[in-house]
């Protein structure tokens, strides 16, 4: 089984090298367009940074503009207090529970999902343990120490 893990690590390294090679080979046309996109994004960031303080200053100078917003926030807080379920599980926000459920469904809906669980050879767990042991230097994608 460890021979198989070594093979997997070697396979990962080869794939990484091949992908790096493909990055090096990206052509001039694509690089030029990426360069233009970067400059456009930087201009956008500068414009946004300049625009935001000016907008904030306008809002601060006009207290009357705050009134509808503050009223809406106050109403929302009041409604949330009234409607909040009294027995919500402590330490498990609703969003996180839903997130986990969706994630489980995502894993189960995957076409080879059950293969992994029913494989019975524990290959995934062995691989995961090897990932968790950085001193062995096996696996972990591009940077074995990172994961």
């Amino acid at each position, binding site marked *: 089984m460890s021979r198989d893990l070594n*093979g*997997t690590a*070697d*396979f*990962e390294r*080869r*794939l*990484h090298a*091949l*992908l*790096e*090679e*493909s*990055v090096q080979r*990206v*052509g001039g046309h*694509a*690089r030029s*367009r*990426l360069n233009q*996109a*970067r400059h*456009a*994004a*930087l201009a*956008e*960031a*500068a414009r*946004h*940074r*300049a*625009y935001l*303080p*000016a*907008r904030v*200053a*306008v809002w601060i100078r006009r207290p009357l503009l705050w009134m509808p917003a503050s009223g809406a926030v106050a109403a929302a807080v009041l409604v949330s207090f009234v409607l909040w379920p009294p027995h919500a599980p402590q330490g498990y926000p609703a969003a996180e529970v839903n*997130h*986990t459920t969706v*994630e489980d469904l*995502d*894993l189960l809906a*995957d*076409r*080879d999902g059950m293969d*992994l669980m029913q494989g019975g050879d524990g290959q*995934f767990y062995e*691989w*995961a343990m090897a*990932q968790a042991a950085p001193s062995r230097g096996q696996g*972990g*994608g*591009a*940077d074995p120490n*990172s*994961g």
Partner: protein
Amino acid sequence: MPEFATLAPPYSMPAASHGDVDLSDSSSNARNSALSQFLAGVEVRAFKIAQAALRHEDDALDAVQDAMLQLARAYSARPAEEWKPLFYRILENRIRDMQRRRTVRNRVMSWLPFRGDPDEDEPDPIAEAASDDPLPVRRLEIDEAMSALEKALGALPRRQRQAFLLRTLEGLDVAQTAQAMGCSEGSVKTHYFRALQTLRAQLGELYV
């Protein structure tokens, strides 16, 4: 009118027009420089990731450009260490939007009598030009391997491909990949392992 003259303030306020704030301060320049470095560092890999998903160069470039603009517009004020997962999350959303749009477009186009873009069939003269590479055989082998890898990556389920490319090509760690994918670290490990197993089964003879 002398009355009005006495009402004038003794100081003069600068005529500020909103949107014309001076950005020459050093913190703003430093932030712009950091963002520039970040984008320059991720752009080519992001393009390859988008290309693996969309399998179309121009669509991939559009997706990366949109992700860059969105990051700059909405998240450039965030700490720089948060940019990478945020950027790849935006990119993935953009890729998914484009894939959905493409599906709809293909369905519509399938009803029309004329299909296909004649420009797509035209060969690129630069790509067709003879190469002066000293090792053409080795280059051909790599080309074949890359082609097989791209095909295999294209056939992977979306989440597996995403986990694999973010880990292997971009070098994100498990936590960053989980942030970028919007799932748990355990889920990232599972998707990554499955991707690796599938790729090894398909490409094993070529690579191992």
